[in-house]
């Protein structure tokens, strides 16, 4: 039994293994198949090597192998390099721009743009800035327009740049279209935190008279741009916050002082500093600053600034209730600095205009000013004006002549006053004539005075006398002043129906303007 069982078991085992061994996998699943496929080329080459091979062919084929490998290496390497060409060129372009090698930078950036791969917007922006720096304005603007279009969102850096430029030009008087355009670019710049953009936003807010937002933005920018302390102070003044205003003026003064110490020739900083000192009530310091500026750079218009300072002092004194005598002193100083200063002249005229019951009091004040020697020339001028208004021409002329004889520059003042009055609304032509004739008495034949008198005669309708004065003044005037005189002469001759002469004057004026 056991024997039979053992035999049966062996049989089954043999059968089982036999069946197993007879199972054939498909070729695709057999290792031998794939191995044969893989090694076939080598077998094939080897068989051919054994059967028909000649050493000479291999020898002659060596140059092909060598150059293939070399070419493969060079081109492969170059090809890999080519994938990152844009990055390499951009890095090199940044370096060239930083060292102001514009020609090289232009070449590199142009390559990036022509390849139309990566860094397109950056390259365009950099190229636009390069064109702008090298004077190729049209090309620069063309690129900037593409980068920062007005109707769609472009490259944020370009929007940022344009927003800063537009903000510099914006004012409350700008049109709504301009403001809308600025707002668009401010938004598209997607940068509300940087000091430059904060400043731009502040300017936009100021243009819209949104002082609170402007203040908020300026506070973000003030660390980077200390110049805005002044603006902050002015905002606080308008918001009626004197204490913060004063603090900001103080900071502005500190900053401007340091700036002037570093570069004393900085005209803008000096003017701003003087202005700030004036706002702080430090008028003498302001005056000294301006005087220092005159010493450094005499060509600038310091006189007018000093005159403005004196007028400001006058206003402050007037607000404090100073007397006319005290008020005349700064006016006198203003006109001394700049006899043509409109604000000083107007304030002076405001005293001479009065025709009310205060005239007597004003007269007494002015007479006392003369007796005390306080600006007698101006006092005589004001008295002369007062007399004129009261109809006393003789006394008026007397005072005018005295004024002119005391101060040499009074003639210019009188001339300028005459001009102002004759162009006033309504003009007081007789008074203006009296002023200018007084001025001519001191400096007869002076072309500016003749021009003023001729103009007054023209407005009076006295064409003949106007022509005499204007034609006398014309040859002596500088070319830049001649077109106005020529046009007035043309107007007069036109009124006299002498059209050809009028046309002649007009043509001369056009020629001078065309130069």
């Amino acid at each position: 039994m056991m024997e039979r069982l053992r035999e049966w078991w062996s049989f089954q085992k043999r059968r089982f293994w036999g069946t197993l061994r007879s199972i054939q996998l498909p070729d695709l699943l057999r290792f031998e198949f794939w191995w044969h496929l893989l090694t076939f080329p080598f077998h094939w080459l080897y068989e051919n090597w054994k059967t028909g091979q000649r050493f000479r062919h291999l020898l002659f084929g060596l140059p092909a192998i060598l150059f293939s490998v070399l070419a493969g290496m060079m081109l492969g390497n170059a090809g890999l390099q080519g994938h990152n060409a844009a990055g390499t060129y951009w890095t090199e372009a940044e370096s060239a721009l930083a060292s102001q090698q514009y020609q090289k930078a232009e070449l590199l950036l142009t390559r990036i743009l022509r390849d139309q791969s990566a860094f397109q917007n950056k390259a365009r922006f950099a190229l636009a800035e390069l064109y702008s720096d090298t004077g190729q304005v049209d090309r620069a603007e063309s690129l900037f327009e593409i980068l920062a279009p007005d109707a769609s969102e472009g490259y944020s850096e370009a929007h940022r740049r344009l927003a800063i430029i537009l903000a510099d030009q914006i004012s409350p008087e700008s049109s709504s279209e301009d403001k809308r355009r600025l707002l668009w670019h401010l938004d598209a710049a997607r940068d509300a935190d940087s000091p430059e953009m904060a400043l731009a936003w502040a300017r936009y807010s100021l243009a819209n008279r949104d002082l609170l937002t402007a203040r908020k933005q300026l506070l973000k920018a003030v660390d980077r741009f200390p110049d805005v302390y002044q603006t902050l102070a002015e905002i606080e003044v308008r918001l009626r916050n004197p204490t913060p205003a004063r603090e900001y003026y103080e900071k502005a003064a500190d900053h401007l002082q340091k700036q002037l110490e570093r570069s004393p020739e900085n005209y803008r900083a000096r003017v701003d500093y003087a202005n700030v000192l004036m706002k702080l009530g430090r008028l003498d310091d302001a005056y000294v600053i301006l005087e220092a500026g005159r010493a450094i750079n005499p060509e600038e218009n310091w006189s007018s600034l000093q005159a403005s300072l004196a007028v400001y002092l006058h206003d402050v004194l007037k607000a404090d209730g100073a007397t006319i005598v005290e008020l005349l002193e700064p006016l006198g100083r203003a006109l001394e600095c700049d006899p043509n200063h409109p604000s000083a002249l107007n304030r002076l005229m405001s005293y001479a205009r009065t025709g009310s019951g205060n005239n007597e009091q004003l007269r007494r004040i002015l007479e006392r000013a003369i007796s005390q020697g306080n600006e007698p020339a101006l006092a005589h001028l004001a008295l002369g004006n007062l007399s004129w208004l009261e109809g006393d021409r003789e006394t008026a002329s007397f005072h005018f002549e005295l004024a002119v004889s005391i101060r040499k520059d009074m003639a210019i003042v009188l001339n300028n006053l005459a001009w102002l009055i004759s162009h006033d609304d309504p003009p007081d032509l007789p008074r203006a004539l009296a002023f200018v004739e007084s001025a001519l008495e001191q400096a007869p034949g002076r072309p500016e005075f003749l021009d003023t008198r001729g103009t007054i005669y023209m407005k009076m309708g006295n064409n003949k006398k106007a022509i005499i004065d204007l034609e006398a003044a014309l040859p002596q005037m500088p070319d830049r002043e001649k077109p106005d005189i020529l046009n007035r002469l043309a107007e007069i001759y036109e009124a006299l129906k002498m059209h050809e002469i009028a046309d002649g004057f007009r043509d001369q004026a056009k020629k001078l303007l065309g130069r």
Partner: protein
Amino acid sequence: MQNEKMSTDVQKRPQWIVAAVVAAHAAFLISMAIWLWSREHYQFFPLVLMGSGLLAWLRLADTKWNHAPVLTVRVVGLGMLSVAVFAVAVWFNSNWIGSIGAIISLWTAIRYVGGPAIARRLRGPVAFLFLAIPLPLNLDLTLVIELQKLATRLASNMLDDRRIWHTVSGVAITTLDRNFMVEEACSGVHSLFSCVTAVAFFCVFQRYGLFRSLLVLLFSMGWVVLANVFRVFLVVYANAAWQQNLDTGWRHDLLGIGTYVGALICSLSTAQLLEFFVPVVWGKLSDSPTGKGKPGDQYYGGENDPTVRQKIRQFLDRPRLDEAGSGRIVNGTLALCMLPLCVLSLYQLLPSASAGTGGAAFQTSVLESVTESSTPAKYGQWKRTAVDKVERSADDPLGTNSVVYTYEGNGMLAQFSVDGYYGEWHDLAYCYTALDWKLNEARNVTLDGNHGTVLDLYKESGENAVSWFSCFDGQHTSVEPPDPSGSTLRTLLNRFRQEQSSQSITPPVYQCQLMVASEGELLPHELDQAKELFVELTRAAVSDMRKGVK
């Protein structure tokens, strides 16, 4: 003696038939020869003819011509094909088809008079003749341009690898100091065709099979391209890195010769290497140079057990008629088919009396319809700065009249003109090539719903220009342009198209074009701006033309 006379007659007869069928195509062959000679990169074609002759002479050196010319199925089939091709060539007046027909006719004649044995020997030399046929459909011009671009591109990659900063514009490489034009010579066009010819000669001489020959030729083209990439790279690199000028004078010539020789050596070396890995196996026949039989012979079966291929061969080459009957049919075919076609082809050589395309004398003038204010004075950033009216002679290809508007803006100077009148669509590319501009690329586009063509031009000096133009007929409908640039086959296609479209074009035809030139290639945004200007100005000009043309 009679046998000797017969064999002499047999030897004399083949010459006149072969010569006759080739001579029948003389009109096309001569015109083709003139055309080939006018193209610098095809001026090697006499060498092809000489090479073919030399190979044929070598192959036939010890051959006995003892085949009686008889008609077989193969010969009849080839004969019909050659007559058909000849007829098509005459119908379309195509030199290209005529030249191919001449080769087919030559092969047919060889097959007829020489039999399979001679034909097998002369297969290579006859196939070699195809190298003298230019590529069809303007592929050679496309190849020229593509090779120039390829050489430029690969050389540019290598220059980038060596950190030689440069830009690539079309076929020009500009470095910081200089502008290098990748001329046709540098791009390897000349060396490609001549190198391919030399390698093909080698293949035919070595009696390589078709597949091996094609493979070797393919490799040789690759070597030529590589050699010229290296040449372009070296010219620019030598100037930038070593301040040496290799683009002019004897150095340039030496470099050219060196790269050509190098390409040739590498091509032949590749053939040898291929032979090392895959040796040429010769069969039983003793036609090979080494006397070991020709390739493929091992596929032939024995006489008692022919393969399918051999059965087909036997069918095709079995004589169907006797020699006399075959001779009559062949003579009849020559007289009735070849001769009239030959006469027709010669007749078509006579100068044509048809009107030319330049400057038809029309009663009205473009100047009457288009004025100074026909285009806007300002468009975007563009501003019109000048308007000029030009009058030319009636046969001037530029057109009898033109009104030229000059615009400045976006840092560019553009000239827009309305030119006319023409009898049909006017290909501006020819005019510009006559003015020393070279054509980089021409492509047809649709602008504002109108057919148009864009020309990419350059000069030797490195100046680049882009020109957009559209033609409008008397109905102010834009005229569809044919495929850009020209070839003999294009002339055929144009003529065919002209017959079809002559009903749809109403003369006179006028042209609106805009050209912008610059020192370097225009940037993409500048191209867009100029294109916009062209569209706008064309719209304005056509609108005025509508009012003016009667």
